[in-house]
């Protein structure tokens, strides 16, 4: 079945770059795109166990007369036919409810704070809530449109990273681009050896796919495994033109607040386009 990516369009140069990323993703994955051109600065997304209010910044309402025209123009230039979403339900008269039955959603790092759009910044609280609640992965595009020629999965051995790996494998299969893996085994006392990660992969039934040879149907081109140096320094090895797939927020809020999150570090340092699978992401059946 075809997949759909949900995109909130902003009619600005930055919005154009972000839409181009979504459209490129559609092209690569044969997905269709559902575009929402906001009429109000906020909307609600009702997930299974959470309701997220997204407060957009004013730039999303820029020049509404030309917004649809621009979106169509960009989509057709990339041979994608867009479908525009008009909210049917409203919680309050200026508070539309946006459906959540998509397969992907494109979301910049922050959608309610203009200051972060010029740098990689931190993930805004709304985007974090969306990642936490959504059953679909979030495409977090780089500030400037760039085609990706490989996929790299950040694998740290957690349940969420297994999901991310499955997502990366699926995308690699659909798009035909090579898949790499990145693992940092941790510095100091928490260091784990490679066998530990192989064991995790074996338990998930992915060992042959990652570590096997071609006869064993291996799908991973290269496994970047680092057991030394600083994590952020090792990120330099991530190809500049790779789509980075990672799991996020598998830990509790307390741990994230106290010790920081690997995902936050990756997104702050890495300018690549990211595809983030949150804790509620459900891997679709093949």
């Amino acid at each position: 079945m075809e997949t759909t990516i949900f995109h909130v369009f902003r009619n600005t140069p930055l919005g154009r770059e972000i839409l181009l990323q979504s459209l490129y993703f559609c092209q690569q994955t044969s997905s269709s795109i559902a575009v929402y051109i906001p009429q109000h600065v906020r909307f609600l997304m009702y997930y299974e166990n959470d309701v997220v209010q997204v407060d957009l910044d004013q730039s999303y309402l820029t020049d509404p007369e030309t917004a649809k025209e621009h979106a169509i123009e960009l989509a057709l230039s990339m041979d994608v036919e867009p479908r525009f979403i008009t909210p049917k339900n409203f919680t309050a008269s200026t508070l539309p409810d946006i459906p959540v039955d998509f397969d992907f959603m494109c979301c910049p790092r922050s959608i309610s704070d203009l200051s972060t759009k010029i740098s990689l910044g931190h993930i805004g609280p709304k985007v974090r809530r969306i990642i936490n609640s959504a059953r679909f992965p979030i495409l977090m595009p780089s500030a400037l449109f760039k085609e990706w020629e490989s996929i790299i999965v950040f694998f740290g051995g957690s349940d969420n990273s297994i999901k991310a790996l499955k997502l990366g494998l699926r995308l690699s299969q659909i798009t035909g681009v090579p898949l790499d893996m990145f693992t940092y085994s941790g510095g100091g006392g928490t260091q784990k050896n490679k066998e530990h990660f192989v064991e995790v992969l074996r338990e998930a039934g992915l060992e042959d796919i990652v570590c096997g040879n071609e006869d064993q149907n291996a799908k991973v081109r290269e496994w970047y495994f680092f057991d030394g140096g600083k994590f952020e320094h090792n990120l330099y090895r991530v190809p500049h033109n790779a789509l980075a797939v990672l799991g996020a927020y598998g830990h509790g809020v307390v741990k994230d607040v106290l010790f920081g999150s690997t995902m936050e570090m990756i997104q702050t340092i890495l300018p690549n386009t990211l595809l983030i699978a949150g804790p509620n992401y459900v891997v679709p059946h093949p």
Partner: protein
Amino acid sequence: MKKFISWRHPGTISIFRMDDRLLLIGMGIIVGLCSGLAALALNHSLIFMLEFLHDFRHYWWAFLLPAAGAMCSSLFLEKIMNEGAGHGVPEVIYSVSRYGGLIRLRSSISRLVSSCLTIGSGGSAGPEAPVVMSGSAIGSNIAQFFFLNDRQRITLVGCGAAGAVASIFNAPLTGIIFTMEIILGEWSMVNIIPIAVASVAGAELSRTLRGNIIAFESSGSFHIGHPDLFACIGLAMFAALASVLFTRTLRRMHKVSRKVSVPFWVRAAIGGCAVGLLGFMVPEVMGEGYHAIHDMIEGVFKGGIGIVALACLAKILATALTLGWGGSGGIFAPSLVIGSFAGLAYHRLLVFLFPSVMWVSEGCFALLGMAGMMSGILQAPLTGIFLILEITGSYEVMLPLIIVSALSTTMTHYFEPSSFYFKELMEKGQLLRPGTDSRVLADISIREVIEKDCICVRPDMLLREFLYTVQRSTRNYFPVEDQESGQFVGMIRFDQIKPYFFNSVMYDTVIVEQIMDANPDTVHYDDELSEVLNKMDTHGHFSLPVVFNGRFVGMVSKATLLDKYRDELNVQTAHSF
């Protein structure tokens, strides 16, 4: 860590997995206490604000106080809480109807503060709807925190509403009945017990912290005679008239205010200012107006029929100006005030027309007027009856209460087919009560009923080749797809092309493209099933193709839909009485 996780997932503990009633009762107590506390907090804040502003009300510029309150209230809701505010109770009903009771956390605090600003500064509104909103949001967020399922979450939303109403009025029965009749719209065993427990918890908390106070207790008792019972019919008419007038004025005022193109906070200030000016002439219209009710029930309210009738109209106007122009609050308290004015005016009219008849005291008619008004505007007679019984403690007026409430509801229904809370939701088709056709259809998506066992054919296929396909198929519908692009180009219905099958000359001369319907009706994943069924009924179809992004995905048929419909209906009505 694991213990923490299981603690946050109580639904997975084996004892609760078998039967979750115990879990819901336990949670209900917590929710009832929290929402009761929220209600009491608002109550005390209102008292504080009224006392604080009391000294300023004698100045000439006192009419600006409600304006400032309404302005701050709207700014707080829009700029600080980013609420995108609705009325409160309809929003709770909407979330219960459509999204399993999911309500934003911010709603548990936003309406409390905003309504406190509006009412405390003199705006004409009630604190009850905000506490219902707050209590419901507390229940919803506790359910979200513990990862409870939709049904359990809805029950806790109900617990929150019941606890809040029970606490603010010290009326546990009203809390239960209001929740079942208005918020949930269903009487089911699984809901009623936790809601009753939450209501008791809310009321008990109120009694502990405020004392067992009956809000409008009368010092004397009412002796109802036969003439009074007959007079109740006329009172019900009066109350129904006031209900209709109040509902329409509120709606009208909303529309009028939207036409004024000024910032929302200026609009709220204009409304507040108008209420302040009105308050110079009729002080009873200011705030929640409970003092006036006390006086009327005690029979010490001064002023003749004209003054009382004028006060009744002024209160309607003041509430419409407050709520319609951007202030925050509910219609419970204003309805009680308007109802008691209507009852009092009616009593004085009766005494004027029939001075020799021994009528019951005017306080009784004020009380009956409140019941009639509540029942009329909410179209919930039980809520009206039990509320008045509990807040006045006048159980001897049970019979006339029933008469007035029942008749007022019926008469109002004739002019306003839905209650004030439901009207907007019904107009948008968003009032989906459990077990109703619209709710069952809304809960089924096209993805759940799609049939994918159709065999697709090519447009250039010869009729002979198509015949072999028909032999293999168990279906009467054949989607036609372009071989190269995979795009859906048309549809063949077996009954439409039967004539070709009996003419063998056609077998090698006709191709599928020539006999297909090139412009068939289609549906999309996003379409609601009610729309799909309408389309089927309008055009006489039994099945329709689902097309997504120009490609055929499957068929939706009435037969499969009926199966799914029955399953869903069974689920929704399994626990009903």
